[in-house]
Every structure is written in C-alpha cells, then in structure tokens.
C-alpha cells in the first residue's frame, strides 16, 4: 500500500467518525449550555413556586370550627357544613351519639360535600358517603378524611385524627 493510499483510506474512515464526534460535542455543549441557563432561570421558578401552606392546625395542634356551634350538633342524627382554617368541614353526631368530623373535600374531584341527614352527598358527580365517611356509591374512590373533633370553652375544635391502627 502506498503512502497516499493509506492517507486516503485514513481520511475515508475518519470522516464519519469526525462527524459523529462533532455531533456528540455539539450535543454535549448544548447540554452544558442548557444546564447553565436552567441554573440562571432557577430564581424565576423559585419566585413562582407556591409558598409552603401553613399547617391548618397551628402550633397547638387544633383549629377552631367555624359556623358550627355545639348546639347545632347536640342531638344524634344532626350534622352541619362549616369550615376550619379556610377549608370546608362537616360535623355530625351519629346514632350512637358520637361526634364526628370530616374534611368536606370530596375524594373524587375536590368539590365540597353536603350533609344530608342519612348520608353525605356530593352534588358535583353524585357520590355518596355514609356517616362514617366511607364511600358507598358513585365515583369517590376513597373515604373522606376524618378529623378529631371536641368541644372546648363552648366552641368546637378539630385536630388531626391519630391513626388507630399501626403496622
């Protein structure tokens, strides 16, 4: 093989390789560039990112129930829609005389549900829960979130329900 042929062959085999290398380098450079731009854009993301929502139960672990007084749910079978920490709530007294409270946000699409005496109903898509908060018919996939409710100084308060079962 003569020198010039060798050269030619070398060139021929180099070209696609060089092209490949070029493409790889360009992609790598692009990647580095995008990473830098991303870093510089982080402040904008951070500006728009939602601020952490404060704990509804505050420092002492409880929240005042709004628009429902103890008298409203004095008798078994009564219940009412109200609010706590700018969210919706349903407080009811069941047949056994126990006071129960549920966050009124429907587990299906987030509408606020309504206490209807024998059941809890969602007007948006017709979901139903029983008075223990269990989803019994319609689209809701999960029971309502139950809260611990108690009376203190003539007003109702709710706090996070301690999980009963563990493990």
């Amino acid at each position, binding site marked *: 093989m003569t020198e010039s042929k060798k050269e030619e062959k070398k060139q021929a085999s180099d070209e696609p390789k060089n092209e490949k290398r070029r493409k790889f380098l360009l992609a790598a450079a692009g990647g580095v560039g995008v990473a830098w731009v991303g870093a*510089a854009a982080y402040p904008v993301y951070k500006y728009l990112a939602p601020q952490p929502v404060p704990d509804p139960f505050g420092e002492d672990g409880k929240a005042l129930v709004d628009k429902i007084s103890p008298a409203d749910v004095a008798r078994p079978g009564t219940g009412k829609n109200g609010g706590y920490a700018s969210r919706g709530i349903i407080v009811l007294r069941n047949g056994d005389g126990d006071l129960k409270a549920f966050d009124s946000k429907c587990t299906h699409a987030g509408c606020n549900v309504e206490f209807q005496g024998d059941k809890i109903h969602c007007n948006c898509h017709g979901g139903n829960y029983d008075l223990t908060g269990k989803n019994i018919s319609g689209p809701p996939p999960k029971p309502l979130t139950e809260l611990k409710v108690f009376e203190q100084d003539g007003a109702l308060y709710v706090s996070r329900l301690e999980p009963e079962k563990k493990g």
Partner: protein
Amino acid sequence: MNYPVWNFPILGGSLVVAIIAIIHILISHLAIGGGAFLAVAEIWSNKMADGERIRKWLHKFATFFLVYTTVFGAITGVGIWFSIQLASPEATSLLIHQFVFAWATEWVTFIGELTVLYLYYYGWNSNSRRMQVFLAVAYFVIAWFSLFIINGILTFMLTPGAWTLENKDIAAGFFNPGYFPSLFIRTLTMFLIAGLAGILVATQIKDDEAFKTKIIRFSAKWVIPAAILVPGLVVWYWFTLPESTLAFYDAGMVGVDGGKMEGLARFFWLAVTSGALIVMGASVAAWKPKAVHLATAISLLLVAQVGIMGAEFFREMARKPYVIRGVLYSNALWQHNAENSAYMNRPYLSEAKWNPEIEEMSAEHGEWIYRLQCATCHTLDGYRDLTYRTRNWTPAFGVRFIEKLDEQKVMPPFQGTLKDRAALTAYFLNIHGNPVTPAQVLELYEQEERAKAAAMNANPKEAN
C-alpha cells in the same frame, strides 16, 4: 481602636477596596490565563500552515495583553494593597506579619512574570520559535504561581482552618479548607477570560472572514473547561463555607435594605447568571463568528466583569462581620477581646487611642464612637448608610439596639458603656434633626426601662 479609621465619604473604605479589587481581578485573571493562551497559540501556530499569520495576529494580542495587564493589572494590584491598608490597617498588619515571606515569594513571581513577558514581547523579531514557545510557557507557569500564593492569603481570611493566633500555623492557614476549590475555580476562570480577550482581539481582523472565524472559534473554546467544571467546584467550595455563612445565604433570599444579609444571596446569583450569560454569549460567537464585532466582544468581557463582581462580593460578604473569620472583626475588634466582657464594657473613648480628649457625654462623644467603631463598614449617607438605617430610631430603641448589635451575627458586638450607647444614639438622632443630648437620650431610655420593669412587676405574664 489601635489605628485611626478612614472615613471615606459616600463610598466608605470597604467599597474603595472592592472597586479596585474587582477591576484588578478581571485583569489579573486575564494576565495568567492569557499566558496559557499565548503558549497554546504559539504551539498551535507552529503546527498550522498559516502559522505566520496567526503569529501576526498573536502579536496584536500580545500588545493588548502587555499594556492592559501591566498598566492596569499591576497597578490595581498594588492599589488593592494601598486600599486595604487604609480600610483595615489592623487586618493588613496581621496578614503582612503572618505571610510576609509568602508575599515576598509572590514578588519574585512578579519580577519573573514581567521580565519573561518583556523578553517574549520585545524579543518577538529576534528570538527563535522555540525560545518564544518556551518563554510563553514559562510566563504562564510563573504567573500561575502568583495565583497559587495569593490564593492562600485570600482564602485564609474566610476560612482560616486550623490556624489560630496562638499556633501561628502558617501551613494550616495557607492550605486552608477553601484553598483548593478556590484555586481550581480561579484557574478555570482565567482560561475563560483569556478566551474572551482572544475574541476581542480577533474582531480587529478585517477583510478576512475565514481567518477571523478560525481565531474566534479557537478563542471561544477556552470557555469550555470552566463551563463544565466550575459548577462542580462551586459545590465543593460551598461545603467549605462556615455554617453561619450558609445560614445567612438561606435567610437572604428575600428582604431588602436592612435586617437580613440578603446581599450574599443577590451576589451569588449575579455570579451564576453571569456564568450562564457567558456560556450563551460565547456559543453565539462560536456559532456565527462573522457577526462578532467590537461591541460584541467588549460586552462578553463586561459580562465577565459583572460576574467577577458577583463572585468577589459574595466571597467578601461571606466573611461578615469578620475581616479574618473568627479572629478579627471588620472594625478591628479582636475576637478574644470581644469575648472578654470586662474589655467590652470599658468606657470607649477613654480607652480609644485616637481620641482627641473628647469629653464624655459631650456633643462630639457619639460622633467619635461612630468614626472609630462604625465607619470601617458604614458611611453616613452613601454605602451601607446609617442615616437610612437609623431613620426610625427612638432614643430608647437606639440604646437597646446598639446593646444587641451582634444579635443577628452580621455586626460585631458594641464596645462601651451605657453612656457610650446613649451618646451614639444621640448622634444619629441629631442627624435626623432631633436635637437631643446624650444625657437626654440616657434619661429617656432609663424612663422606658423603669416603666417596663414596673409593668413587669404588675403583670409578669403579659409583659412576657
């Protein structure tokens, strides 16, 4: 207290240092990275068919480089030294006495740099090719050693590591925790700046697009190492920073003009943004070298300049309120004195050396405390101005605030007695057109304290 305090108006001493230093750092980085650029371009030109042309262009680069780095670089370097003597004599003295031979060794590199650069530049026409390459490489190596040395002293101030005033362990102080990340970041930044300077000189190539394209693409490549590696190095550097600095950074995301140390966060993001802008700008230049003109190239260097401003301000602010962290406060109060309550509670003026026999509780009392204790960092109506910061002060608030000056850990503790605090408060209140005397301030403060104490006795729960 040991030295007089330079009350430079509007800017304040520290900003004078910063302005000179920021200019110097861009140029000094160019002075070192440019050496590598010269060396690589020399070798490159030897391998190229149009080597002679490249060298002709390189001569232009070398002329720009020589004038720019020796005139502005060398003198601003000396200028930093001039300004730190004025702004913080006590700290400068400490650094000089600890690192005098490090500085002297750095001076050997200066002489070496200069001489080799002159041999290279003035021997352009007579030296052999090999000699020119050798000189360029030698220049870079010697110049880089000057960074190697000064970097030890610079990083020492923020992270003195295992060094203490007692052990005087120079090796521990020099190769402190921040030393290596900082050294690598600066080295890569140097290459980047050299590349940007190369682009600038390339804009002077007229009427030959192909050659201009070649040189600009060559120069733009010098940004790549920094673009890839600096982010990782910054993370490393971040982990060497004192915890309190990081806490200031976190607190500094929000807030403006007072209270929080938000400057730390702002300048950090200035550095990051500038990095991104340089990567974008250099990519644009490499993509369309034909479009690059003088204003384009100058803009790239100016972006580097604001980036350096961000990074260096960050480094300086990270040290707040110390000038040598954990050893000496910015206003020349030694840490060991600050921990000694007997020292801190002495009547300030009678202990201060630079006291022209000012009478206690006189009208000038507060002014002299301001001049000797506050003016190292603050001015009245310029940089970090106290007129603005004390605008809402009441007599009692001022006295209380000064007592807890160091509560947020961004200022040194106050030295002096209750009377000193009252006098200083009176001084600021007078600036706002409230003509109270120190004695009146003291009286008002004590009244309020008594009322508070009475309220506390009456209703301990409510007064908290």
